[in-house]
């Protein structure tokens, strides 16, 4: 029995070294060599400063930008709400018959309502995502924001609409995922458009 235990200790250590460490180092090396941009988090820099990751949504507080989805993340130290806290991902976990869900969606509608005008609002734009870091909104959620944004930025609705349609992506392989836009990419394009004026 002792021999059997000793055999297992040696087996555990050697397999730990191979599948815990060596495998990780191989993938790390391949990633850094072949896919350096993706492997380091698809970071976006502007003027030498990291402005975010193309894959991670960020809190949009300026009214002159396209708005993203509500986020239920909290600050990992304080536990207080902090949308798009990319060091503490997570969803609201609110259930379908929870009164707090109705209140959360109502307040998210109240926040976006002045920016989009009257009419029904797509659930995508007012219901928080699973990760709290969703970088995208549906095409419909983006187009809904065009008229209001045109008024606030002075850029014509036609040009904004064209901008959205240029940035639209999906469905992948023509089958998977909705038509959608990356909000950071869209807002960077919007800033470039403003800079050109």
């Amino acid at each position, binding site marked *: 029995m002792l021999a059997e235990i000793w055999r297992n200790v040696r087996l555990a250590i050697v397999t*730990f070294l191979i599948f815990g460490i060596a495998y990780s180092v191989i993938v790390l090396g391949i990633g850094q060599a072949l896919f350096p941009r993706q492997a380091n988090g698809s970071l976006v820099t502007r003027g030498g400063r990291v402005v975010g*990751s193309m894959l991670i949504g960020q809190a949009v507080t300026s009214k002159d930008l396209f708005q993203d989805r509500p986020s239920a993340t909290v600050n990992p130290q304080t536990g207080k709400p902090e949308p798009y806290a990319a060091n503490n991902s997570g969803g609201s976990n609110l259930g379908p*018959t929870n009164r707090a869900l*109705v209140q959360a969606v109502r307040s998210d509608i109240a926040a976006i309502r002045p920016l989009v005008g009257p009419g029904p609002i*797509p*659930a*995508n734009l007012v219901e*928080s*995502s699973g990760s709290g870091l969703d970088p*995208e909104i549906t095409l419909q959620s983006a187009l809904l924001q065009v008229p209001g944004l045109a008024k606030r930025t002075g850029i014509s609705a036609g040009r904004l609409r064209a901008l959205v349609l240029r940035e639209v992506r999906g469905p992948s392989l023509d089958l998977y995922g909705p038509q959608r836009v990356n909000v950071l990419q869209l807002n960077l394009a919007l800033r470039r458009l403003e800079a050109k004026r």
Partner: protein
Amino acid sequence: MTIRGLLGDALFLAVLTAVAVPVGTYIYRVMEGQRTLLDRLLDPFDRLIYRVAGIDPERGMDWRGYAIAFLLSNLVMAIVVYLVLVFQTSLPLNPARIGPIAPTTIFNTVVSFISNCDWQVYSGETALSYLSQWALQFLQFTSPASGLLVAIAFARSFTPGRTDLGNFYRDFVRSLTRIFFPIALLFAIALLATGVPDTLGGAVTAHTLSGGVQTISRGPVAAFEAIKQLGTNGGGFFNANSAHPFENPTPISNLIEEFLMALLPTALLFTFGNYIKNRKQAWVLYGVTMGLMVVLLLVLYSAEAGGNPILQHLLKVSGANWIGKETRFGIAGTSLFATLTTAYTTGAVNAMHDSLLPLGGIVPLFQMMLNAVFGGVGAGLLNILMFVILAVFVTGLMVGRTPELFGKKIEAREVKAAAAAMLIHPLIILWPSAIALASAAGLAGIFNPGLHGLSEVVYAYTSAAANNGSAFAGLGASSPFYAITTGIVILLGRYPSMLLMLYIAGSLAGKKTVPASPGTLRTDTWTFGVVYMGVLLIVGALTFFPALALGPIAEQLAMLAGKVF
């Protein structure tokens, strides 16, 4: 529901099946020591591991020897990882200087990862160093390998004239080097290409377009992600699991992850067909199981696509139920993932299951209650075969024929053991749920009020017992009460039933193979497939219907009536 969404899901399942059949044969060849493509490259590695660990790969084991090696290896690996987690603060690769982990959390985590459950009561980015993540990644290789081996040992008991079940250590090494390692490496690279990061660089500080500051956690994710899915583990690198854009950045990465978690359990049905030299048997079991899963997928997809009537009516919100879901996967990609992760008991999530509508949430719950809709690597095949034994016994009684299974007589011993294995699952779900619902510590963890709160508790123990690991994550599962009770349920859901199946295998291996006669009840017919499904559903429905009626079914009715809690 959209035509495009349905077509996408259908195409996925077709490709999965087309690949799973040859992979099933490949697994058979690997486990039986036949020549395979990677032998020349990998044989030296195997020999090196044998030498370092002092393994004699040629020595055959009976069921006891196999069971002892299985338990002992798992215990030792658990202790190794336990030590890494305990000494996290003194060990390297901790760029964020993350502090120590609570003892109950360590207990729960080690138990959960060694058992292929990967239930998580911690959040990856705030609680674990990179080395601790690698320690868990190590278990994500070895726990599905262990499950696979028990299933293979069981399959070997039907080989005519064979009395041993194989050598555990040799099987362990070969399955790791020939199956888990190459496939995980290949798809880790594919995931890198889709945008999954892999770096030891620590978090980045970004200065956002709106003038804010954002700390972005990163890590060696791609390597972790591939084996997390391939091994039906499901324990995420980040708290949000596969909903996190770094774990699952595009619809294509989503397809890869869905494919990986479904690949081996589907393939194993065909591996089993190879063992018993009966491909039609594999197709029958595959066919009825896939049929059930597709029906459940449609229930989930249609519920979520329809949206939440309360929000639609009260707040004039239009469209599907988007809460807890990511834009890039769409409703179809989210529904397929939620269905697969609970059918194949992986437990990774690309959306928050707690926020599914009642009819959407009942699908994951029900699949884990049945615990045999394909199931995890190895464990799933064992559960399916356990129900096959019971179905053979029941039909044998009905038609008055001797119960035989693939040429071996099924007698009182085997039926008793299979029945015991079957009964464990409902007991370790319903009793702990009742205890939690009757105790202050249990009730304190509930997040969503009303009927949904009951579902949260039942979901937790169902997920633990099925070694799934997904959650209605609002539940405060990190409290000592839940960390300890779910940890115990995870262990009871893993080891006793596997040992009972090994016991059955040992008993069958000693029996002579009976040639099929006109009196033999054939199990490779669609008629038997329907009987098998009937037994599975009747057992599942009768045992769990009261809990489902009080939870999701009642909540669905409340929601339709516009009631909130």
